[in-house]
């Protein structure tokens, strides 16, 4: 909060500190919504300008990050009404229904990942997951980026995106399910 006080006082150093902290996550959020890097970058720059102009209006009822992301989401949405990203995968099931028998029990169970613990090193898997994110429908990608990468709470995500708690959970569920599936396929290919 002290940082925001300095920003209100017109301290450039405070602005740079905030830029270093939030600019790249903002760009990632914008890119999760639109495919054009140029549109995303412009929306983020626009947001920064909106922030320095409107910092007086920040009331501290939400976290600064939530406020910032909410402004950004609105800018991206208005800049990109014709620019929605299309999805490569759109799954309505957590798991491919063919893996279950008629009674709904596993017919084709998952192979454990645990034997290959070393290959599950998060760092090694990050590039595969990044590529997997690109295959998700935009709304799912945005939710999972905010929740699992940026670490926002479900309430914060609902506030940033103006969506209901139930909708947030459905999008998160589909996103995580698809990411798991893609990681699973990638792991078996690597074997």
């Amino acid at each position: 909060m002290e940082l925001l006080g300095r920003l209100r006082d017109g301290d450039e150093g405070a602005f740079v500190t905030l830029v270093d902290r939030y600019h790249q996550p903002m760009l990632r959020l914008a890119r999760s919504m639109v495919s054009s890097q140029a549109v995303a970058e412009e929306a983020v720059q626009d947001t920064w300008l909106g922030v320095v102009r409107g910092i007086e209006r920040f009331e501290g009822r939400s976290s600064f990050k939530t406020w910032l992301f909410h402004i950004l989401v609105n800018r991206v949405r208005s800049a990109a009404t014709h620019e929605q990203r299309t999805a490569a995968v759109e799954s309505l099931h957590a798991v491919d229904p063919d893996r279950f028998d008629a009674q709904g029990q596993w017919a084709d169970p998952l192979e454990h990942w645990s034997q290959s613990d070393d290959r599950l090193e998060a760092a090694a898997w990050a590039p595969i997951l990044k590529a997997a994110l690109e295959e998700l429908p935009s709304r799912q990608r945005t939710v999972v980026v905010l929740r699992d990468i940026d670490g926002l709470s479900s309430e914060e995500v609902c506030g940033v995106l103006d969506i209901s708690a139930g909708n947030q959970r459905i999008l998160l569920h589909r996103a995580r399910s698809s990411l798991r599936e893609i990681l699973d396929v990638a792991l078996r290919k690597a074997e």
Partner: protein
Amino acid sequence: MLLLHPKDIACRQAVELITDYLEGTLSRRDRRRLEFHLRGCPNCSAYLEQIRTTIRVSGSIQADDLTSEARQELVDIYRRWKSE
């Protein structure tokens, strides 16, 4: 009376409850039923474990560092705004 049996929930349903379970939004009854199912079902437990790993891998993704050009560009925008 409620007879709990691992097959009380089909695996196909159990996997659809995992996010609500992790979010803590299942009713107490559904949470008990799911936990009971998971204890008796290694396949659904493996599924839950993979979802947890997926979340962990997501959490490990770092944002690329801001380039000094991009930072400078923003500082310029800030200075232009201040001098308005």
